[in-house]
């Protein structure tokens, strides 16, 4: 039996607390001209579960994340999302206004570079409040109170609520970006290298915070990273990508401790030890 299949067969995941997966990705593929960015990726994400996508640069992780988070229409396959009322929405079948509404209510997208996810021209408070205003909040005091509350939860100094994001450090910008996404209480968060570019101590604090939030808010998350340590800390399940394909998918500890696919074995063994 080839290891590829074995890796998929043992995919169990944590016992699902609800009957249906929050996100079903079926045979998603995307090409740029003759370049295949990702091919035939299939997985399901259950409520409250964190799935890490790991692989080397150019493995198609970010393209996959864009495809499943509604930012880039895939060439093949479909992405199904479970709405709050339990009905299924085909991400690229629903009208664009609904997709945009989902993206700022039920989802969060946390970019690797805070410049992509924040408005740099307006204050921290306005950044956090924007989603609330987008869903109809029209009371300044309430918006500000919510922004203050979320800055506190993300351990950003509340006194800096009126400062522009560019005066913030890298770690604080990243926390601000997370606050901005979580303010509408999303159920699903997409994270692209959330700790990339941060130094290790800041990274550790941020990871700690993320882990707490994910369990407190019962968030489902797809986390793209090339750092296996980040994946181990945050993720319930792990998907390994190479050359645009998912080569292995399983429980994080299982995949990392007992890798089946040769590429996963290589990846795990090339992690530097201190």
């Amino acid at each position, binding site marked *: 039996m080839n290891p590829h299949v074995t890796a998929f067969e043992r995919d169990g995941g944590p016992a699902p607390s609800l009957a249906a997966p929050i996100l079903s990705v079926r045979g998603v593929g995307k090409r740029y001209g003759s370049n295949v960015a990702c091919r035939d990726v299939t997985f399901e994400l259950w409520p409250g579960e964190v799935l890490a996508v790991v692989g080397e640069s150019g493995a198609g992780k970010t393209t996959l994340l864009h495809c499943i988070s509604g930012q880039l229409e895939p060439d093949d396959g479909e992405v199904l999302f479970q709405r709050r009322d339990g009905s299924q929405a085909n991400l690229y079948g629903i009208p664009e206004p609904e997709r*945009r509404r989902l993206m700022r209510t039920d989802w969060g997208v946390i970019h690797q570079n805070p410049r992509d996810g924040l408005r740099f021209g307006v204050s921290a408070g306005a950044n956090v409040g924007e989603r609330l205003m987008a869903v109809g909040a029209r009371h300044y005091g309430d918006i500000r109170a919510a922004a203050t509350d979320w800055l506190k939860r993300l351990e950003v100094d509340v006194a800096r609520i009126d400062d522009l994001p560019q005066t913030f450090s890298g770690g604080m910008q990243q926390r601000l970006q997370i606050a901005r996404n979580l303010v509408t209480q999303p159920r699903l968060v997409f994270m692209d290298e959330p700790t990339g570019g941060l130094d290790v101590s800041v990274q550790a604090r941020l990871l700690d915070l993320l882990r707490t939030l994910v369990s407190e808010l019962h968030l489902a998350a797809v986390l793209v990273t090339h750092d296996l340590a980040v994946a181990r800390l945050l993720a319930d399940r792990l998907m390994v990508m190479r050359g645009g394909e998912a080569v292995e998918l399983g429980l994080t500890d299982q995949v990392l401790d007992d890798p089946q696919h040769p590429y996963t074995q290589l990846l795990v063994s090339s992690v530097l030890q201190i």
Partner: protein
Amino acid sequence: MTDGYNFAYLDEQTKRMIRRSVLKAVAIPGYQVPFGSREMPLPYGWGTGGIQVTASIIGADDTLKVIDQGADDTTNAVSIRRFFARTTGVRTTTRTEEATIVQTRHRIPETPLREDQIIVFQVPIPEPLRWLEPREAETRRMHAYSDYAVMHVRLYEDVARYGHIATAYDYPVIVNDRYLMRPSPIPKFDNPKMDGCPALMLFGAGREKRIYAVPPYTSVKSLDFEDHPFRIESWTTTCALCGSGESFLDEVITDDKGGRMFVCSDTDYCGRRQASQGKAAE
């Protein structure tokens, strides 16, 4: 009327094209309709959009009033009024209630407008989201989906910085509960006059090649927060010339020793109040 030009300067095909855009704009209140803006014999920013709209709707029996910052006697107002007097031969006036068409920059007259009047605005930048979202494709999508949160982000920013909504002119409005619109650079003092106004309001932006409109009796709401409601400007003083406490006042510097006075920006309104006070005194 000067010979050698078509009536109202523009050729008939151009006027028809602009009228079609105007009709579409009236049918979709607040929506920016593209049109083929022509070169006009004055620079962009001096009212090319407004002139083209006026030229397309003006007829031989119309009476035209042109104001700039509320005044009938400023350079821009005088030259546009003379332009139409020469190219159409229509009657011109400075009295708001005598005019059938009022072309304006920066103000709506203090005298209430009527059903049989049309007010034409000169618009420098028609897109209300322009400085918030640089991509034209994206702003059109935002209009299509009424996705206007970012405008409230701007108002939030105002309150956070200044403690109140500091936007004083070109104050964003929602027309007919649908489209976000820039009312051209009129002071927010004039925003309430647009709500349910009996006159047709046409907006022309020559450089940006857009026409939009607010039909008579259409709702025009200024954006605000529940706890920071929309408020118009107020002054602690009254007009130094006519004593009006209800009109929009301009601050005029009178000497270099700190002397200043506040006077009505609407010269027609102010002048006639002074005249009637003079009569009453006699």
